[in-house]
């Protein structure tokens, strides 16, 4: 029983990062109707940024997160200008197909670049406080992962309030719901797209930073994280950033439970089984309805 609870706890901790990664992808998909399958590679880049800042300059990963966020935001702006900006000029059905092609190409290129620059070695940030564990009721809580979950939650809540209250946040939601009506409001829809893409990319980077502290990174983690994010989006449904985050927690918990009940090797399978079941039983997602961001 204690083993189960312990695994569940660890599952929820990693689930926060699933949620964070998925929130970025969901925002981009919901607003631009573009699927960026290179999302996991962008997460990988965020992880390496934090890793090298720590390894070379000794910057604490939780501090470097403050640099990774704007850094990946800028990268998102560039990627939109260079690659994805062309896609959104097309009709919606064409957008998804084209964005898949561009995303796969970008994913391959970033992966190759990472192998070339940083080798295929597994990397992880080991800070002085890396091994600290808090024990609550016999359950072990790794402090670094707990802090990561808390930070992920802070970012999600921050994004939620920006979308709710911010002038451009509301513009992004309006654009997601009806871009033509948004144009009539005087909203520069392309700017809303650009902003949503950059924010989504920044969130991927932040998730990557947190992965490199609590877990480990290598150039090949991209696809795995893109998949996790997709599973979470299907699980939680589109349209709610907070709902997406909870979807991440649920996936983390489900994976952990299955590791205990069915055995570790089936951990990855469970996510895909959930993916399948939700698509069959409730294709609109568990937590929300379709449409705009709330």
């Amino acid at each position: 029983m204690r083993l189960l609870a312990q695994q569940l706890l660890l599952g929820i901790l990693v689930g926060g990062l699933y949620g964070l990664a998925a929130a970025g992808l969901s925002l981009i998909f919901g607003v631009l109707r573009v699927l960026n399958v290179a999302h996991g590679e962008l997460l990988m880049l965020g992880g390496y940024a934090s890793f090298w800042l720590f390894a070379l300059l000794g910057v604490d990963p939780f501090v470097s997160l403050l640099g990774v966020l704007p850094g990946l935001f800028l990268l998102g702006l560039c990627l939109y200008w260079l690659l994805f900006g062309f896609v959104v000029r097309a009709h919606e059905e064409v957008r998804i197909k084209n964005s898949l092609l561009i995303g796969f190409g970008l994913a391959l290129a970033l992966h190759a670049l990472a192998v070339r620059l940083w080798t295929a070695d597994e990397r992880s940030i080991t800070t002085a406080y890396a091994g600290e564990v808090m024990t609550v009721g016999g359950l072990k809580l790794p402090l670094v992962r707990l802090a990561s979950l808390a930070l992920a939650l802070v970012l999600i809540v921050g994004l939620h309030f920006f979308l709710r209250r911010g002038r451009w946040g509301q513009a992004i939601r309006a654009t997601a719901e009806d871009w033509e009506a948004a144009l009539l409001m005087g909203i520069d829809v392309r700017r809303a797209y650009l902003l949503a893409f950059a924010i989504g990319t920044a969130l991927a980077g932040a998730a990557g930073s947190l992965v490199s502290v609590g877990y480990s990174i290598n150039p090949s983690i991209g696809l795995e994280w893109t998949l996790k994010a997709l599973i979470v989006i299907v699980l939680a449904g589109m349209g709610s950033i907070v709902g997406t985050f909870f979807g991440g927690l649920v996936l983390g918990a489900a994976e952990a439970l299955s590791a205990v009940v069915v055995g570790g090797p089936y951990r990855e399978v469970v996510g895909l089984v959930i993916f399948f079941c939700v698509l069959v039983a409730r294709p609109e997602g568990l937590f929300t309805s379709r449409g705009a961001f709330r």
Partner: protein
Amino acid sequence: MLDVRDVRAGYGDVQVLFGVSVAVAAGEIVALVGPNGAGKTTLLRAIVGLLPLRRGSVSWEGRPIHAAPAHSIVEQGIALVPEGRRLFARMTLEENLLLGAFAPRALGGRREGLERVFEIFPRLAERRRQLAGSLSGGEQQMVAIGRALMSRPRLLLLDEPSLGLAPRVVEGILEVLRQIHRDGVGVFLVEQNVQASLALADRGYVLENGRISGAGSGHDLLRDPHVRQAYLGPLAMDR
């Protein structure tokens, strides 16, 4: 103030407008009537920049605006209440109205604007936190008009505001248009409700098959035999 000249526009291979010219002077109510598929909505979309022109021009206060991006039109003082209302259904009524004041010209006065809209449509004030998608058709139309007014327009374009609404609600909306007009805002009303819109308007145009087939004062058009025959039905002849 608004001067539309010889506009040709369409979608793909289908040309819808074949050289349409209309004008709205400052503070005037102008109605555009015509059958389904005549190109009324297309003309409005061309005016606000949602549809590129193939030929012709749209000028506002003497300056051409047809090459400007669509999102910049509202900042010029032109607001469209689109066909089907196009509210942001998953946002609250108040959020919808505040988005109407997104343009810089209206941003500073959005609080006063909100109060003004609630003055015009008192029913909306009590439902401000409700999701726009959950409102009745009439209320949604009020929000759509209110949202356009939030941008402090000098010219309000309306596309079929009476569509699908009960006659009493339509009467209320026409009364509001009169009130908006009294405040000095120009109104360009596109309607299938020919009788009501021509009676309200200073001037009117008839659009048929993508061409203007009649123009004159609202009063004269209502007496025009062709208009009566085509739009008001044979019974109207006897009235």
